[in-house]
């Protein structure tokens, strides 16, 4: 009884605050989804009604088939997948290398990563455009994947260093004594141990590549090569635009992102505390 009284007001405030916060956080997602299923007449006639009277797939059909979003979905998947595979591979090697062979570099590395994090992408994109033109990679998915390494690799290395740190060096030494070489130790012993960490890093890289906008906008110009985010943005200029189709298109971008995010949301917390502060 006494205890209840004591924790009363602050707990009540917490619940109220969090409930309001949760509603504000979730409302746009719900509104996006219900709008995607409304016919345009219904949307304009009754702007504040929440649920659609008649659920319709019309908006999705328009987006996918009339506006050829299937092509952009394919592009986004290809670019994001290749980015994930290559960046994760490079970063695993680097993170392990830093932990085992360059332990003193750890702190310097954190500084370098923070420094590169400061580079505005709008600054980087100009030299990228110039180099891409020279190499003939403008308007290609290969070019885009290459450029995506610039933000994927530093971040993935940072995340992975935190995970590789947890592998006890004793296990590796035991395997070395048994005659395994460095590469075998890495592939057969270390990698399986940090697999959960690698998976969440890979998912994070995928989400970021899937969501990327600026480079895709400026380095890829033809609509059959461009990614989803840019395609949604160009929808705005289309004559047949109605907000229902726009929300259907946005739903196609947002749902995979939220799905993958939920898979790794436990891993994201605290990563900052372990990885960055010493």
């Amino acid at each position, binding site marked *: 009884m006494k205890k209840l009284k004591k*924790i009363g007001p602050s*707990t009540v405030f*917490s*619940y109220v*605050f*969090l*409930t309001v*916060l*949760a509603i504000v*956080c*979730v409302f*746009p997602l719900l*509104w*996006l989804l219900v709008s995607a299923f409304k016919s345009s007449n219904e949307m*304009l006639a009754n*702007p*504040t009604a929440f649920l659609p009277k008649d659920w319709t797939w019309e908006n999705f059909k328009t987006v996918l088939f009339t506006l050829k979003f299937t092509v952009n979905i394919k592009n986004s998947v290809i670019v994001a997948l290749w980015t994930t595979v290559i960046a994760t591979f*490079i970063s695993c*090697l*680097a993170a392990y*290398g*830093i932990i085992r*062979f*360059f332990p003193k570099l750890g702190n310097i590395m954190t500084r370098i990563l*923070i420094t590169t*994090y*400061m*580079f*505005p992408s*709008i*600054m*980087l994109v*100009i*030299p990228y455009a110039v180099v891409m033109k020279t190499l003939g990679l403008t308007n290609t998915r290969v070019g885009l994947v290459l*450029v995506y*390494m*610039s933000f994927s*690799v*530093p971040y993935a290395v940072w995340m992975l260093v935190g995970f590789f740190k947890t592998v006890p060096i004793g296990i590796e030494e035991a395997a070395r004594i048994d005659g395994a070489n460095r590469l075998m130790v890495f592939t057969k012993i270390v990698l399986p141990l940090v697999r959960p960490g690698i998976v969440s890093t890979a998912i994070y890289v995928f989400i970021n590549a899937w969501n990327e*906008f*600026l480079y895709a906008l400026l380095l890829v110009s033809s609509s059959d090569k461009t990614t989803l*985010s840019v395609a*949604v*943005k160009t929808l705005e200029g289309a004559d047949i635009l109605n*907000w229902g189709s*726009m*929300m259907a*298109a*946005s*739903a196609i971008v*947002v749902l995979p*992102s*939220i799905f993958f*995010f939920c898979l790794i*949301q436990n891993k994201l*917390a*605290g990563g*900052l*505390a372990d990885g960055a*502060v010493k």
Partner: protein
Amino acid sequence: MKQPDRLSGRTYRTRRIDVTRWIFVAPAMAVVICLLIYPLCSTVLYSFTNKTMIKDTFKIVGLKNYIDILKDESFYKAFGNTLKWTVGSVLGQVLVGFTGAICLNQVKNAWAKSTFRILCIIPWAFPAIATAMVWKWILNGIYGFLPTMLVDLGITEQMLQFFSDKNLVMPTLMGINIWFGAPLIMVNVYAALQTIPQDQYEAAQIDGASKFQSFRHITVPHIRTVVGLLIVLRTVWVFNNFDIIYMITGGGPAGASTTMPIFIYDTGWTGRLVGKASAASIMLLIFLVILTVLYFKVINHWEKEDR
């Protein structure tokens, strides 16, 4: 016993490890050098030239681009907007996220805790394009949910024009950015709160400390390094953010929401003046570096105090 063998064995091994260890880090180093250091260097170079997007040839013009920018009124406006946008967004994100984390820490029911957490994390998972489009729709000046709702409830007489009213546009954008960024702060601060040993609070309570005192002397010192670092990362991110503003307003109306990245985009891509855009990027970067160094001075000072 087998001294010579062991010795030679060791030298052999060290030499081989020397090579393999570089193989591990080489690809990542190549990425950093080719995709981050090289572009930085060429931006510095371009900033001293009259390079444009159209021609491949260019010549050195010295400090002309920098002087042009410093004479350009729209630069000062963009810089001012960037400061407003950054300070407003980061403060709001920290305030909301921090309060959210403290509240989440108060919730004892495990089911409620994880439900709140999952729900509040959703904005973080929003791609910029979806954030932009859904808010454009919610705040649409003709059919938008919120303006219509405000009129229906009698709070405003006319439909608010969140994106075309030049006094409303920046606060609106900041609000959207706070919505997007607060979850990240909340989750990380909450994680930091979990690292505080509970017995310290109990000890403080026995000594008769008030709730505020234990917050001030136990909670704050424990989490301020993480919060400080979060603020650094968020500041840099918000400062450089191009996507949200570009997609929602494109810098309008009449430059009212043009921040530095949008200014650089307008100069370099729309205006095709690569030299001038590069100079502006370098100035932006220098400002950020100074700011970050100052931040880290403070954080390092805290870390020393903690020890």
